[in-house]
């Protein structure tokens, strides 16, 4: 069996002591930032990107992936114990998880979240391993026009699924693509939008941009509600769910896992969408929908499984098609670029140890997280007693040093300061930043593929619509746009994306 052979390859990479250590470090850090509100996996990964330069590519990616799925575990702890989402995908867990905690069942809720996440993580890892081959094989059939169409579809879906009005989401994508044009035009060597500043010849680095928007601007926003972020905690006792709890949580876990596995693959999907969808589904299917919001264990088991499954399967489009499905994946592209790895179908054939090592490390990481989270939960809860006024300067220090170390220069630090102001404006205007970053990351590839497609067709745009594959991808994008414009769906979406 090919799959088993591949998984064995992966094991031999992931189980190396150094890589185990990096996976553990990633999971630990992920849990930490998941627990602490106000610092997400995005800022953390951005912060660590420059540091991964010194590591072998396998270790770097294993660690960064660990941060991402580790944050899903940690986020649930804060959601349950103090009714604050430590991480955006834990928003729905606050609803029933915190109610359970109020009834003295915090331990059971935490155990449910951890068990659900672990189960979902295992299933999603297998799905990733099984689906990657066929998808990558499909991707090899793609030419410039198909890739162009695929990326357009991805960006449209990402704007559909982001919060806020659809048109504004698309505007953010286009703005991101315009920002991506800064730097040297590869075909002609012209400096575009660089204004003679040498540091801009290589383009706008997205680490200072992400750090400014998701690190610094987020801090300014959090400080407006300073004081409310100082947290009180309670003692956690009795982790074990009862037989009745198990009977109710297992079907929810199964459904959440299936939903998360599917939705994670969608561009723009990932953990946040999966957890919302799962909560809605559980409430619809339940015989006692009135219990939801009052401590229904299904409302914890389903979404927590879904967000972890979604976090993991969101690696599928990146690793097989080269298209990041959410912002964290866009940063992973950055990490791969640092190591001269082109994300896409070739990763599997050119770097099998990296590809399968990463997948197997996810399974090992989930196991570590289960151990990290259940017995040590008291320790994590203690962390929440650190007041925000000590925490945010620490975040700023790590971010600033991280930005500096991209090029050992201060230009990027100034850049991050500028993007802090820009990011704060976006927060105030309620414009979604995720589509901006996706546009920034995908912009160069879209331009290149568009230009190549047009050279091949001698400037005839109609080839995009006559080639069956690109036509169907663009048709799917068009359908998504039409659907989102329909009034009924528009209101439903607003309800679903409401925080």
């Amino acid at each position: 069996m090919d799959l088993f052979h591949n998984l064995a390859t992966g094991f031999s990479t992931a189980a190396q002591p150094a890589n185990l250590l990096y996976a553990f470090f990633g999971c630990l850090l992920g849990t930490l930032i998941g627990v602490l509100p106000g610092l997400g996996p995005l800022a953390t990964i951005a912060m660590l990107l420059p540091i991964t330069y010194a590591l072998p590519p396998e270790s770097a990616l294993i660690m960064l992936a660990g941060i991402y799925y580790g944050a899903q575990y940690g986020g649930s702890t804060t959601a349950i114990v103090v009714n604050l989402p430590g991480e955006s995908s834990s928003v729905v867990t606050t609803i029933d998880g915190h109610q359970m905690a109020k009834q003295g069942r915090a331990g059971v809720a935490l155990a449910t979240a951890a068990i659900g996440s672990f189960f979902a993580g295992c299933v999603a890892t297998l799905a990733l391993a099984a689906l990657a081959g066929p998808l990558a094989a499909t991707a090899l059939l793609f030419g410039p026009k198909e890739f162009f169409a695929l990326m357009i579809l991805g960006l449209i879906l990402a704007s559909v699924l982001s919060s806020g009005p659809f048109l504004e989401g698309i505007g953010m994508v286009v703005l991101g693509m315009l920002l991506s044009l800064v730097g040297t035009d590869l075909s002609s060597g012209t400096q575009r939008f660089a204004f003679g500043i040498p540091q801009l010849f290589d383009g706008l680095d997205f680490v200072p941009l992400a750090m400014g928007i998701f690190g610094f601007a987020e801090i300014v926003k959090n400080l407006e509600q300073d004081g409310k972020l100082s947290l009180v905690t309670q003692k956690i006792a009795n982790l074990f769910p009862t037989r009745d709890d198990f009977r109710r949580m297992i079907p929810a876990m199964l459904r959440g896992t299936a939903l998360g596995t599917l939705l994670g693959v969608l561009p723009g999907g990932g953990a946040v969408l999966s957890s919302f969808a799962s909560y809605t589904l559980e409430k619809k299917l339940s015989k006692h929908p009135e219990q939801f919001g009052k401590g229904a264990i299904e409302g914890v088991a389903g979404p927590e499984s879904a967000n972890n499954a979604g976090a993991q399967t969101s690696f599928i489009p990146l690793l097989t098609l080269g298209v990041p499905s959410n912002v964290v994946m866009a940063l992973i592209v950055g990490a791969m670029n640092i190591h001269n790895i082109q994300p896409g179908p070739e990763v599997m054939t050119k770097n099998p140890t990296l590809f399968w090592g990463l997948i197997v490390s996810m399974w090992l990481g989930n196991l570590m997280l289960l151990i990290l989270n259940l017995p040590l939960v008291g320790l994590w809860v203690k962390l929440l007693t650190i007041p925000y006024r000590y925490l945010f300067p620490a975040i700023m220090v790590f971010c600033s040093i991280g930005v500096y170390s991209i090029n050992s220069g201060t230009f990027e630090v100034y850049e991050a300061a500028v993007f802090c102001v820009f990011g704060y404006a976006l927060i105030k205007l309620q414009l979604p930043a995720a589509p901006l970053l996706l546009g920034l990351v995908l912009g160069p590839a879209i331009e290149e593929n568009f230009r190549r497609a047009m050279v091949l067709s001698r400037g005839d745009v109609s080839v995009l619509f006559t080639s069956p594959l690109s036509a169907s991808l663009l048709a799917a994008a068009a359908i998504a746009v039409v659907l989102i414009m329909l009034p009924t769906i528009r209101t439903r979406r607003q309800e679903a994306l409401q925080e």
Partner: protein
Amino acid sequence: MMFGLSIRNQRAFASGTLFLGFAMFFYVVALGYPAGTAARMGPGYFPRLLAIVLAAIGLAVMLGAMKSTAECQPLRQWDWKGLAWVTGSVALFALLLFPAGLIGALFVLIMVSSKASAEFTWKGALANAAVLIALCLLVFVYGLGLRLPVWPSIFN
């Protein structure tokens, strides 16, 4: 209001203006690059195309904000002070890193950014600075070996 036009959704109107402003900026700058033809695109072709799309979106968002059915959303208040302390501390860090070294730059970064909190105390901020500077030296300079100037440049 006059002519029956009023900006009901101030938030969306401002967003549209932001898009339009960026679009015009990029379009005007892109005029300086050769456009080429669709079959042989020059460096200016794609930027102009994108700028036109963004301008159209910006206008549509602005018009949508003035529709009589638009939701009423006022502009949100900015916390200028918080923004200034945070952004300023980052810029000061960049400015001071080489002349004052990591220790000096971090001290300024931590003290200035701490001022952004409503619960600022001198004692707390100084203690925090001491702990964080020690931690950074340990992790980044000695642990990871990053190339950072530790001491002020006059000592070198």
